[in-house]
């Protein structure tokens, strides 16, 4: 594997961090994905996020029609343990139905420990700047626009999950070309009619 487990993953971490700080901006993980030259049963962008964020202290859940191979890969490469969809610190969802379900069942933290709300990483078809989703909130000067290649059920599920701030879940979106965007729980998402 050409991927450097420290320096390349730090770059991935910085990109995720920048995406969370600047919701609607799109980061490109294709360079790092290219270095991950293994035959893998899951989207390399999704795996890079897992490699950068997970260790044995964290738990994760894979929401997918066929989750076993993906679970095993993430677990063996990060030493993180699997947990149920409502207990996992990180949820990796592959597919439209899974995304909505994963957001709805993920843990939202408690009022004492809102930071324990899950991070939900969604695999989407595509991500593009400019588009029908209007984003506003901390980190966005006025509004930002995003197009997400995923059936829109997830938007309502996310809004319902994040209704009681500071409780909620933070979303990371990764598309098939290893582009990444983030929607922290503080971001308001509106669909432009």
């Amino acid at each position, binding site marked *: 594997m050409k991927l450097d487990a420290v320096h390349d993953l730090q770059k991935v971490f910085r990109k995720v961090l920048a995406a969370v700080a600047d919701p609607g901006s799109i980061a490109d993980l294709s360079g790092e994905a290219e270095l991950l030259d293994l035959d893998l049963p899951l989207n390399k962008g999704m795996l890079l996020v897992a490699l950068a964020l997970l*260790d*044995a202290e964290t738990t994760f859940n894979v929401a997918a029609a066929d989750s076993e191979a993906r679970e095993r890969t993430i677990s063996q490469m990060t*030493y993180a343990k699997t947990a149920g969809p409502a207990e996992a610190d990180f949820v990796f969802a592959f597919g439209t139905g899974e995304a909505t379900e994963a957001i709805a069942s993920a843990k939202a933290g408690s009022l004492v420990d809102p930071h324990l709300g899950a991070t939900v990483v969604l695999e989407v078809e595509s991500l593009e700047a400019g588009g029908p989703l209007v984003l506003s909130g901390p980190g966005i000067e006025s509004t930002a626009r995003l197009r997400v290649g995923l059936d829109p059920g997830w938007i309502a599920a996310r809004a319902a999950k994040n209704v009681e701030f500071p409780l909620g879940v933070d979303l990371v979106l990764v598309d098939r070309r290893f582009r990444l965007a983030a929607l922290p729980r503080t971001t308001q998402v509106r669909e432009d009619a």
Partner: protein
Amino acid sequence: MGYVAVKGGAEAIEASIERLKYERLRKGRTLDAGAVEAGMRALVDQVMSEASLYDEAMAALSIKQAEGSPEEAVFLMRAFRSTLPRSHYSLAVDSRAMRVERRISASFKDIPGGQILGASCDYTHRLIDSSLLEETDEEAARWLSDYLRRGPGAVDQAGAGPAPISAIDYVRSLGLLKARPDDDAEPKDVTKRAIEFPASRSERLQILARGQTGAVTALGYAALRGYGATLHPTVGELRVGRVAVYAPNPFASAGAGSDGVAAEDSYYVGEIRITAVETLVPVPIRRGLGRTEMEFELGFGLSFGQNETKAIAMSLLDQCLESGDKRPAVQDEEFVLLHVDSVEATGFISHLKLPHYVTFQSKLDSVRKARGAGRA
């Protein structure tokens, strides 16, 4: 206006950092981190112990960068530690299963296996040795090869396995040591979840083991001098040596059974040098009708590297905190545990240097107003 002030500050800070580098290099000589690791064993051990990170090379580098300041080196090491992924937990290490390098008892002259003095400053005259000014690498190499030719027996003997019975077992066999059930509860980690009181013993031992050497020593000394209920304690056994660390197979099926199975299916990670101390503390037990009997309690101290004073002080504080009577300060866990950490103590004191312009101005205003009102 605020923006201008911030820019000015940024430039001044850059200049200050550059000046710090100048101070480190101004005598025209650089310090080799490898030389720090080789020749400053005590400081390396102290920094690893207070940082709770066992890495001699990183500790030496931190010491070089910090120009020898332990608090700054510990801060650097703690910051580095916080960036590391936590991939594995080792199996519990039995500090008695140690390759002993030094093992002494102040309680019994004839401990099983004998007293092994090992390397210690305890038996030196504390006279500054001016010949060290002229010491050269060649001389050192010659002495070293001569020593190893002369004394391999001694080196081997120090590396011998643990004695079958420790001094503590003997006191226990006499029925004089308060019996305690084994506690195999999963230890809590204060670096993962902030401590809440009352603390568990694992949290206490963790905080003391990573405590600032001077602070732990000072509080242990206070306990010894009578600011606790401690009667004169005796070191039952102090041992310095190397213990092996094993990590269990991370992919073993969950709940694969007892520790025995886990130990077989585990990986050798390496060995670390530790100091472990068991102290015997006499405590009076009231038996009624004015009759008092003496019994012993055990205090335990453990530290990365060879840090004997700290480990002994830790064992005294461990026993103090177990006593349950919070009236003496050194037996009050909130007092002891919240004040012995190097980064927390130096950090909070250092924060007094940060700008408090607004809070101080408002304090000044209220003082002036109060005085003005008094005169009126």
